[in-house]
Structure formats: C-alpha cells, structure tokens
C-alpha cells in the first residue's frame, strides 16, 4: 500500500501527475480565491465548468473526486438551509405550518451563493490535489519557501499519526485482555484520552530518537525528497489559468453570456 494524503486517489496515474507539484498546489488557489471574494455567481459557474473540462482533459475520475467530499455536503446544506428564513426583506414564499415562516429572496440567493462557493472550492481543490502524493506535497511546500521547521514538523506529525494509532490500539487491546470492560461511549472516550496522553509522552521520547537518527543521516533542519524541475508545460498551464481568471474577472461580461445562453433555451 502506498502512502496517500486524505485527498489523494490511491495508485491513480493520470496526465496530471506530469504537472509539477508546485503548479498543482498553486492552481486551485488561483481559481478559488477570486470567487470567494467576488460576489459573482456566474464566475463560480464558469470556474466550475473550467475545472470540469480540465478534469476531462486530464482524465481525472470525477465521481471519485466528488466522493471525497460528499460527507461535507450535508453539513453545508444544513448551514445554508436556514439562511433564507432570516436574511432579507422581500418575501417570496410563506410556509404555514402552525406558525408562519417567511422565505426571503435575498436569503435564498445568499444561501445558494454560499453553497456554490463551498461546493466549488471543494471541487476545485480536490480535483487539483487528487494526484498529489505526500512527498510531492512536501516538495511543493518547500518550493513555496514555507519555513523548514514547519515542513519538518508536518513530516514528523504525519510520521507519528500511524504510530500513535497503532500503539493506542495495542494498549487498548492489552487492557481488554486484562479484564477492562468498555461498554459505554463515555468509558471508551475516557480510556482513549488516557491512552492518548500516555502515548504522546512515549512518542516524545521516540521523536528524540528519530531526530538523532535523522542527524546521523545529515539532517540540518531541511527535509528533501526527490525534486522535479518546473518545465515549460507547467509554466504554460499556470500562465493560461492566470490569464483566464483575469479575463473572466475584468474583461468578459459573464452575466451577458449566461443570459444569452439561457435565452436560447428559455424563450
């Protein structure tokens, strides 16, 4: 089994793998930041369509990308569901279920905008990050000149997650073998908290040893894995997206285009 980041599709080779990790890390920010700050629903749609086309060109599995964040969608829906009930002045519908509940026009469009923003941001990030491996992610952070101590801490943190998890499991099993009965959720939580505390102390000693072993192999504060060069096609892709986003924000009247397209289908 390969090491994967939570957003990565395991063992999936796509054309996107050929793009430099730094570009794969920067691109979603270039696409997402404008629509997070500009209140333009057409911009979000356009960027979503652009990402969709990108996914098709780079042969990414769209269903898999969507499956990575479907868990979050109900929470977003829950948050946005109540906005139309208290934001706005113009009532578009009135629910009568014992009491009168107003649904406001402004609230509805705000809820739709928030939902679309979250969905759009998740879709764009998951699409571009779907091929990033753990080491590529670290390489991209290094290229972005993120301080070495932060990257080092991130690497060591990731190193200890499975160790902590497995030692927790072993301690729990050993306690169960010695008659500890875990019946309620509260008991389970209490035991986990106790074990976690103990494991952290144990692993602090371990991290000291890890640091020593890294020092023995020349560690000087900077962790380097295999590095790739930024090639011409990476630069081209990045430039293409930057220009596209600038055009979409400043030069193209998206509202006019969308209304034109809609009028073609809805006379």
């Amino acid at each position, binding site marked *: *089994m*390969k*090491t994967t980041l939570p957003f990565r599709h395991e063992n999936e080779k796509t054309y996107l793998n050929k793009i430099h990790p730094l570009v794969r890390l920067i691109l979603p920010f270039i696409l997402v930041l404008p629509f997070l700050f500009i209140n333009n629903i057409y911009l979000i749609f356009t960027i979503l369509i652009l990402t969709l086309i990108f996914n098709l060109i780079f042969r990414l599995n769209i269903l898999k990308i969507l499956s990575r964040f479907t868990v979050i969608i109900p929470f977003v829906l829950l948050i946005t569901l109540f906005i139309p009930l208290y934001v706005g002045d113009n009532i578009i519908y009135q629910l009568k279920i014992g009491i009168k509940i107003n649904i406001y026009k402004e609230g509805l469009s705000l809820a739709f905008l928030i939902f679309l923003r979250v969905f759009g941001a998740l879709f764009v990030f998951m699409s571009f990050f779907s091929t990033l*491996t*753990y*080491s590529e992610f670290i390489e991209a952070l290094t290229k972005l000149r993120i301080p070495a101590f932060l990257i080092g801490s991130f*690497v*060591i943190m*990731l*190193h200890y997650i*499975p*160790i902590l998890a*497995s030692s927790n499991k072993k301690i729990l099993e050993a306690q169960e073998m010695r008659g500890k009965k875990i019946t309620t959720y509260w008991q389970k939580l209490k035991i986990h908290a106790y074990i976690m505390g103990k494991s952290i102390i144990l692993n602090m000693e*371990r991290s000291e*040893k*890890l640091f*020593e*072993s*890294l*020092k*023995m*192999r*020349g*560690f*000087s504060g900077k*962790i*380097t*894995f*295999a*590095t790739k060069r930024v090639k011409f096609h990476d630069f081209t892709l990045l430039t293409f997206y930057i220009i596209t986003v600038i055009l979409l924000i400043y030069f193209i009247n998206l509202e006019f285009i969308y209304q034109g397209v809609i009028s073609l289908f809805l006379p």
Partner: protein
Amino acid sequence: MNFSYNSGFKIQNLSLKIEENSIYALTGNNGSGKTTLLRLLVGLLKPESGFIKIFNEPLTRNKKELWEIRQKIGFLFQNPDDQLFAPTIEEDIGFGARNLKLDEKEVKKRVLWALQAVNLIEFKDYSPFNLSWGQKKRAALAGLLVLKPKLLILDEPFANLDFNAIYNHLKIIENLKREENMTILFTTHNLFFVENWAKKMLVLDNGKSLYEGEPKEGLNDTQVLELLGSYDKIREIIKND
C-alpha cells in the same frame, strides 16, 4: 572516556580500539551502557572526559566536521521505527544521499543499489508502516548504505527477528562487509554471534569494561559467564518444574 547521565548511570574509564575491517561485538546485560556507548561513539552524546577518534580523526562538536565524520558511519537504531520516517521506502533510503548533496542521478543509483542489496526492490513504493519488522530493519539498513559508510554500527541488529530473517540480515551485512570493506561494530545479547561472528568483543558491566579481547577466550572467563549467564540456569528451572 567517562560519561554520566543525570539519573546517575555512568560510563567509567572505558577504553577501546576497533581495528579497520574487523567485526567488533559489544555485549552486556540490559542497562549496562551498550547503546550509550554507541551514542557516544557517533557524537550524539558528549563524553565528560577523554576522547574519541574515528578513522584517526577526533570527534569534534563542530557541526560541519561532525557531519563529515558521520558520512563515514552508518548507525542502525535498535528500533527501525525510530529511523524510518519518509512516506515511501525509496524516499527514506534517499534521504541520507540527498543530504550528501549528490546529484539526483547518483542518488537514484545509490538508492537502487541499496534496495537491491537488502532485497526490497519490490517494496520501494511502500510506506514503512506497511512492512514487517524484518523488512523495516532491512529498509533502515538500506538508508545507511546509501551513505557508503566505512563503519557500520548496529544496535541489536538481530533482535526480534525470526531465524530466516536473521539469516537474510546476516547474509546482507556479510556481503557488504566483504564488498565494501566495512568495519562492523554491533551490540547483542546473543552470544552465538559474539562467539562465531565477532573477531573481538567488549563486555560491559554497569558502565564499566569487564572484558575486552578475543570472544572465545572471553566466553570462557568465569566472571564474564557469571555476568552474562547461561542457558544451564534456565534448564535448571525447567527441570525443577
């Protein structure tokens, strides 16, 4: 050389000389100071008095000079989980080579060689956490081999390994010793390796040297035998039961 921990444990008046291209065993009971001595030898701990020379160069505290000396040393930790940290075996093995500032081609060449030397080529993309203990030990060893060390320091290299894993591990180390003319210093509780593999041995008793010399002679010494014990005592308990 002298050294002491805050807990009170001391390494006292210890003196040893390891010849190049030889195999040297360090043995003693748990807590006798074997690992502490190894950590002193590689500069992870600083002696309170005395000196350490590696390949005739004094072990300094200067970071740059220390790294130059450490490039000649491969230190295998007792627990491979203390050493393996990278997302994949291949990247972990390449870590030391990249710190040598070698070009990527040379790094890849050395990584491939090390992977082949420890028979882990098919596991190169695996996470260290998905390997068995024996495989982890081999991966940790490969991580040192890329440095092309002249001195290989192995802390309990055969602990927790089954017979086949010991056989494979030993075969790899023996081949490397022959091909790369490495000097080997190892700690162990297993007197079989002390007797049959090492050319010289040091027995530590509570931070002090009890015996230094030929293993065959040492293992006939009554004081050494008393300290290290023998299976005869265990046999007695089994018989009595």
